[in-house]
């Protein structure tokens, strides 16, 4: 198994390396001028040249990329933000955790609730509840997350006043420690709306997958036996049938993670959640390439790490899987 982990990590690193090249050249070759954002019209040509030299933009592209890679690998330096005039890593550092928490919360909710609903839908096939479940699931899948976010803010934050409309904690809040920062009630209240919106968007995947798998499992003999033994229906559905129907749901987890972390961009933007996604949008609007590039690579890296973990989880749940 360790060989599998090492190999997968190696593959992920190679992919990241290639991605870093793609992203780097994408930002340099396209028409937008990286200096446009920071160059003041009032600056003289000499001052502009000086500024370019300061950020290393006067060297040939290949050299720039070499330097960029060297700095990341040796010093963990992703370059200096054009906008904040601070190292990109410093700006993004604590945002990784914020994005991770939001994504994991959303996935957890979506997969638990979705699985339960999917199992019930298979059992009560043809009922009005089942059709309603499919339609509601698909509606939230069709609705862009940013729009559902706006509607929920309208309803639950401004309309009913139940939850805060944006941000991650109340203004002026100072945490004594890292744990206090993320374990406070205030943080949880801020987490609920964005996590719910993201979870609703994902809900239909586990729900419909488990429903379809359950429909097949339902006819198995061991389920009939459980019925014959007179076990309570709830026990049959969740302990006997759902367990065996779970595999496709777990398989879908890997792609769900990628989509969730990548798609978190818009949820974070609408809720002003200080994560990587919001930062990438802000950086794009400011033409702040070092930050956009770094955030992009971090999102990709985050997805890869989570995918490897999902693969391992899969093997744990289904011992028939052999890692090669």
């Amino acid at each position, binding site marked *: 198994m360790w060989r599998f982990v090492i190999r997968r990590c190696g593959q992920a690193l190679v992919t990241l390396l290639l991605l870093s090249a793609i992203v780097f050249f994408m930002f340099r070759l396209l028409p937008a001028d990286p200096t446009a954002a920071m160059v003041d019209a009032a600056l003289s040509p000499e001052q502009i040249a000086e500024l370019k030299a300061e950020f290393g933009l006067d060297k040939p592209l290949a050299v720039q990329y070499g330097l960029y890679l060297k700095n990341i690998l040796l010093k963990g330096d992703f370059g200096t933000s054009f906008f904040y005039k601070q190292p990109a890593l410093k700006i993004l550092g604590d945002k990784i955790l914020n994005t991770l928490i939001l994504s994991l919360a959303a996935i957890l909710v979506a997969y638990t609730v979705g699985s339960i609903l999917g199992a019930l839908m298979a059992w009560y096939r043809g009922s009005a509840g089942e059709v309603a479940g499919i339609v509601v699931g698909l509606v939230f899948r069709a609705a*862009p997350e940013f729009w559902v976010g*706006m509607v929920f803010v309208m309803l639950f934050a401004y309309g009913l006043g139940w939850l805060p409309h944006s941000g991650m904690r109340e203004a002026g809040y100072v945490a004594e420690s890292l744990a206090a920062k993320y374990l406070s009630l205030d943080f949880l209240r801020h987490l609920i709306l964005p996590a719910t919106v993201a979870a609703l968007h994902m809900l239909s995947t586990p729900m419909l997958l488990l429903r379809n798998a359950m429909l097949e499992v339902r006819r198995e003999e061991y389920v009939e036996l459980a019925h014959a033994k007179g076990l309570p229906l709830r026990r049959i559905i969740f302990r006997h049938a759902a367990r065996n129907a779970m595999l496709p749901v777990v398989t879908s987890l890997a792609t769900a993670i990628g989509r969730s972390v990548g798609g978190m961009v818009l949820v974070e933007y609408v809720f002003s959640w200080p994560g990587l996604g919001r930062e990438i949008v802000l950086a794009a609007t400011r033409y702040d390439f070092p930050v956009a590039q770094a955030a992009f690579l971090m999102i990709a890296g985050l997805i890869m790490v989570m995918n490897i973990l999902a693969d391992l989880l899969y093997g744990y749940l289904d011992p028939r899987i052999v890692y090669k």
Partner: protein
Amino acid sequence: MLRQIWQHLRRDPLGLTGVGLLTFFVLVAIFAPVIAPYDPEAILRLDGEIARLHPPSREFWFGTTNMGRDIFSGVVLGSRIALKVGILAALLVTFVGTNVGLIAGYYGGIVDTLLMRLVDLLYGIPFIPFVIVLVSLLKPSVTNIILAVSALTWRSVARIVRSQVLTLSQRPFVKAARVAGASDLRIIYRHILPNVLPIAMLEMSFVVSWAIVSEASVSFIGFGDPTVPSWGKLLNGAFVAGAVRFAPWWVAFPGLAIVLLVLAVFFITRSLETVINPRLKGGE
């Protein structure tokens, strides 16, 4: 096959709803300039005053924005770019993806390895951030949005078509064609392509919905084509103005339009899926 689809649709209320909705949107898009009562960019006046933030009324069916623009006209004309992006991106993606899949699957060996590693690499790129960054780097325009969406999404079509081609190449009719002296191109496009077309079409309908939502997302963030009215752009205006606090109609209608159109595509896709992959019917 069309007949088969129709036979199936008749017994599938969701699929039928999808076809109905999609037809409705296509008609709205075609006749948009006739339907829209105002120019969506015009600043409207009512009794001499700029019609700011009017709730839905007889004059303004979906209300107005803070600049006095008619939201109904914006939503009607916005259907054009949504459908255009959805259809063109899907055609482009299916064309590229199917060809890559056919070539990789048919020739195998080094060609296959290279193309599939490229696909793997693309799978490592997060979709929405990529589209946002690419459109912000290129100039925001309808063409660039279509290109940015297509640049990544062909990966899934290529992968699925390739796996189909791998099994098809082993089938007797392909071998027979080869023995009969058919050229590679002829085998690929005359014998294999028709067999992968259904599954490619299924993927195509997924791409339609991704493309529509991506266009809306990109426009929502502010990188929409500045010259064309779009649903995402209307929502961007609403978000920037903070309309969630005082103008629910401004938020609701453009969003509902997106939901209904994408939902229509979903319903049709689900229907197509059961026609193309009859195994799914077993569960139904």
